[in-house]
């Protein structure tokens, strides 16, 4: 059993292991184990952006921070690209830096990763692995970390929560080693490991841990003005190749350093990690080669097959970069056949990266006769269970026996489909006449140039067919859908929508069903506005060339949450500056609700979210809410508005105007306050009362900026309805803590900022030049 992933040396109490450090038993998910390790390490800075399934790392650390359990400076970035930048900058200062991400987040950060590794700046990045888009899938496969293989980072693998904890400790020592000086990525399976709670031993002996970790030392720092250094020079040939040679040598050094650090870790914890995890490989004739959680499942089956006298083994890795080429070659020297399971494809390469690298490793040995089968399995979170492992073993056993490879490369677990099975066909396309009924009539006054909107009564609109069908999966009471319904009630003619990633996207398009009755596009929220702007220009170009005679009048609408206006701000502002003929509608529910209520930049000061927790040391979000309408106003687009789902007529007038401007002048942006009972912690039916006070307290001013001129469309002061902000905050669970004694200062800060912004809007309303 010496080759087990770790020899559990438990005493009878079930608690302590035989390392030098005293430990305690906890019950943690992989993400919690990463957070616990981060707390124990005491990183200086964490830069992060939430993405399922890694978000829980930041959430857990936020809870711990609120309770005063650590002092890591946690910086919520504007996106993963920003998070990577924050981490790089922080690491240049010489302290310890942490990040956690998954999937598209890793890909969005990708261009920063080689920058950091090549400039030799260590940090730790946890990746809860997840399928990359598209279509968007939140579950596990390895398509994200396969993209990281060429970044020059060390990559450690952690197959269970205990390993996540331990690998994070090891990562510090490995990355900071003078011969290595590279950032380290710790990859564990999304959901299977990130969200599955297991027994985990954690270190209680802080001194022993600190002795193991040592003090971070850096040959160069950006924070020592007495020793000025230039990071990141301009470098062409003949120098760049030598810089890369240094990088390659650092990886070579890591081959030695990693097992040394694992050995020291074993002394500390009693848990042993070989760089390559060999299970029953000593005399194996066939083997499966798998990464992370799937390898553990295969071990169970290997035990059973061994019981039947079959010589089977499982080969798995705890270190993916550097790739343990020699060890793999040695381990496979006598093995007749293997199945390499790849949890991601390298399309057109006849194998995923793992099988290609295993093949490359063994071909160096002239005597090697191992037959290699590649199977792409478990994509997008598809389970890998005993039956799957057994099938792989059987294929390997058959190949070993016959010496013939029937199928070198195949997908495992796919389904061809049944011509007799059909997806429900849904509803017919909406006829233009059905939705062009003059519910809002916009006319331009020829003298003043001002737009006038005539609305039909609400009852008349009630039977206008909705462009979104019922049957979507939003939470009970969700505000995004009343917003969309109100807007769609007045938009005339053909509409094409683009939804950025978010609640409204996820709950309307669960494959193979869609709630959209009109053409709908999803793109990731860092790039929705750019995508739609491209389609808008294609539309006008096709029209101009006479190639689209049947669609003379389409309105283009982008729908986003407030989160999408953080990560997608650059893309949206680019579209605004180019002034495309399109509408952007933001349903603002004050947080990243789709991923479990993390703070967005639109979350107000002091509000509780899962990354701005409330405890004895922290009281919710530490910065004020972002003023997105003013940002768009400064981009001088023809029409900007704010509205609330609680004032349908006001919102509908503005939506009608926005459509007019999008058709006639260019881009429009609207921010619409939208109810979220789940994460505001109210009852499902509290929308009106809560929204009403948000508006009457002047926290959320209702106004428009039309061709640069500001106009308040609902003034609680004029109407004698002004109320105190505390009346609003007292109505929601997420702000209840602010009502307790000791929060007077924070409350005052919220009131002051809201008042300051309200006065600015009022001044603009009064002065057309402002």
């Amino acid at each position, binding site marked *: 059993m010496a080759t087990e992933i770790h020899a559990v040396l438990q005493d009878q109490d079930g608690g302590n292991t035989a390392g030098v450090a005293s430990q305690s038993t906890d019950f943690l998910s992989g993400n919690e184990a990463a957070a616990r390790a981060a707390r124990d390490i005491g990183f200086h800075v964490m830069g992060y952006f939430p993405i399922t399934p890694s978000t829980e790392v930041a959430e857990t650390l936020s809870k711990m921070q609120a309770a005063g359990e650590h002092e890591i400076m946690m910086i919520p970035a504007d996106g993963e690209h920003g998070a990577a930048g924050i981490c790089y900058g922080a690491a240049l200062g010489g302290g310890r830096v942490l990040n956690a991400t998954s999937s598209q987040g890793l890909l969005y950060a990708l261009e920063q990763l080689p920058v950091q590794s090549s400039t030799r700046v260590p940090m730790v990045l946890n990746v809860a692995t997840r399928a990359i888009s598209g279509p968007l899938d939140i579950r596990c496969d390895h398509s994200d970390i396969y993209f990281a293989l060429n970044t020059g980072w060390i990559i450690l693998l952690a197959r269970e929560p205990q390993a996540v904890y331990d690998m994070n400790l090891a990562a510090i020592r490995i990355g900071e080693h003078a011969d290595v000086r590279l950032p380290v990525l710790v990859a564990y399976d999304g959901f299977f490991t990130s969200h599955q709670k297991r027994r985990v031993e954690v270190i209680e002996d802080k001194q022993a841990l600190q002795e193991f970790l040592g003090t971070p030392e850096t040959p160069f720092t950006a924070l020592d003005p007495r020793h000025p250094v230039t990071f990141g020079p301009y470098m062409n040939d003949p120098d760049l190749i030598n810089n890369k040679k240094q990088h390659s040598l650092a990886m070579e050094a890591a081959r030695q350093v990693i097992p040394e650090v694992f050995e020291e870790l074993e002394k500390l914890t009693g848990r042993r990690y070989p760089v390559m995890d060999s299970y029953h490989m000593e005399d194996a004739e066939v083997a499966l080669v798998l990464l992370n959680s799937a390898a553990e499942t295969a071990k169970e089956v290997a035990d059973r097959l061994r019981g039947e006298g079959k010589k089977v083994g499982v080969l798995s890795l705890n270190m993916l970069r550097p790739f343990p080429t020699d060890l793999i070659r040695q381990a496979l020297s006598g093995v007749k056949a293997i199945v390499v399971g790849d949890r991601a494809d390298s399309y057109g390469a006849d194998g995923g990266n793992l099988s290609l690298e295993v093949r490359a490793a063994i071909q160096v040995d002239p005597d090697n006769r191992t037959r290699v089968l590649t199977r792409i399995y478990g994509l997008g979170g598809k389970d890998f269970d005993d039956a799957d492992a057994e099938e792989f073993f059987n294929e390997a056993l058959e190949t070993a026996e016959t010496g013939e490879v029937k199928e070198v490369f195949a997908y495992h677990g796919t389904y061809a489909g049944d011509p007799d099975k059909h997806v429900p066909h*849904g*509803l*017919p396309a909406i006829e233009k006449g059905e939705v062009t009924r003059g519910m809002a009539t916009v006319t331009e006054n020829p003298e003043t140039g001002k737009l006038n909107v005539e609305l039909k009564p609400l009852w008349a609109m*009630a039977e206008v067919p909705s462009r979104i069908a019922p049957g979507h999966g939003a939470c009970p009471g969700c505000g995004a859908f009343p917003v969309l319904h109100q807007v769609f009630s007045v938009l005339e003619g053909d509409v094409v929508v683009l939804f950025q990633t978010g609640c409204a996207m996820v709950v309307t398009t669960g494959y193979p069903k869609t709630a959209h009755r009109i053409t709908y596009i999803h793109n990731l929220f860092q790039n929705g506005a750019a995508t739609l702007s491209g389609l808008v220009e294609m539309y006008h170009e096709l029209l101009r060339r006479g190639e689209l005679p049947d669609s003379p009048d389409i309105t283009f609408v982008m729908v986003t949450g407030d989160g999408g206006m953080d990560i997608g701000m650059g893309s949206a502002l680019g579209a605004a500056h180019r002034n495309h003929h399109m509408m952007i509608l933001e349903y603002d529910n004050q947080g990243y609700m789709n991923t479990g209520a993390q703070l967005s930049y639109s979350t107000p000061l002091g509000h509780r979210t899962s990354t701005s927790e409330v405890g004895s040391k922290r009281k919710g979000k530490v910065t004020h809410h972002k003023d997105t309408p003013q940002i768009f106003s400064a981009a001088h687009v023809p029409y900007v508005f704010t509205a609330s789902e609680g004032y349908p007529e006001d919102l509908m007038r503005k939506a009608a105007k926005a459509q007019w401007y999008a058709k006639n002048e260019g881009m429009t942006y609207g921010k619409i306050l939208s109810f979220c009972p789940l994460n505001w912690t109210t009852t499902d039916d509290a929308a009106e009362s809560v929204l009403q006070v948000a508006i009457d307290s002047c926290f959320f001013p209702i106004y428009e900026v039309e061709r640069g001129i500001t106009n308040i469309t609902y003034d609680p002061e004029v109407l004698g309805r002004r109320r105190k902000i505390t009346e609003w905050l007292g109505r929601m669970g997420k702000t209840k803590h602010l009502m307790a004694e000791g929060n007077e200062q924070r409350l005052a800060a919220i009131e002051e900022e809201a008042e300051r912004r309200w006065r600015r809007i009022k001044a603009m309303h009064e002065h057309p030049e402002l």
Partner: protein
Amino acid sequence: MNECVLPDPSGFFEIRFESIGGLGAHAAGQILARAAVLKMNLNGSHFSSYGSEKKGSPVRSYVRLGAADKPIRTSAPIDSPDVIVVFHGALLDQDITIAGMKNSGTLIFNGPADEAHEFLEKIPKGTRVVRIDATNIAIEELSRPNAVLLGTLTATVPFLDGDIVLSTLTEKFAKRNPQAAASNERAFKRGAEEYEVLEGVGKGEGDLPVIRPSPVLGYETAPIGGVIPYAGNTVSNDLSTSRTGWMPLFTAKECIHCGLCATVCPDFCLVWTHEQEGEEVPVVRLKGVDYQYCKGCMRCIETCPTEAMTRVTETPGLADRERVPLYSQGATGA
């Protein structure tokens, strides 16, 4: 630490919670597994599967327990559990809820007494069937169904130490909300006492088969690129299980047909007609609610200026009787 001995110490004891988001199945699984691992000297794992973070969507929560020295390697979901706990009576209608039920196992479900349960006939003969009115107890004790069901579970599965599970549940709330801790304790204890073992309801032979739903479309039949060319086909979905005991009831004679409810209904489940009598101006009238789509948020009631929409307890069959379908059968396609 207490020694809790599994019925079969060489294998796993597996529990599956069947629920919908918001009823606390995930938290219940977590509390149970935490208690087992940290206080009962068992090894264990816990995880849940759910669509996204949405309230009202199906949730399965899994607890796998083994002897302290037995490693847990598999991370696969539990197909053939020893115990299935059903948090919402409506889920019992679905075969997938009770899939893999063992003849030697236990089924615990949330439901009021004296309710007919034809679907329970599918349960294996040997399965112990336990009923508890967790919803009502939770309402009476200002707690949640998960506390009640944990009480029933520990009372009916002897090796699980009820005192330890209860203390783990209490710890979770003790600091932040002592009142909730007291409510939960009462709910837990009532769950442990007021359950009923239903005799002779299961008629099935042997274990129920495992169900692995296969997709409708495959790589030879799906349009390329993940495109869905079937506009609005969510109309074939049934969201009834999102309601948690209440529903809005429409009283036509109280309605002034103002259209306010249409502006706030997130589920687009209100049915309107266009009526014209003689030469008069056509009017739009509210006919009723399509409960296939209503998730029971009650926003229509909040906004209604009259008494046309009222909140009522959802008794069996009420929604079916009151339902006004938005689409005829043919409109939703095959």
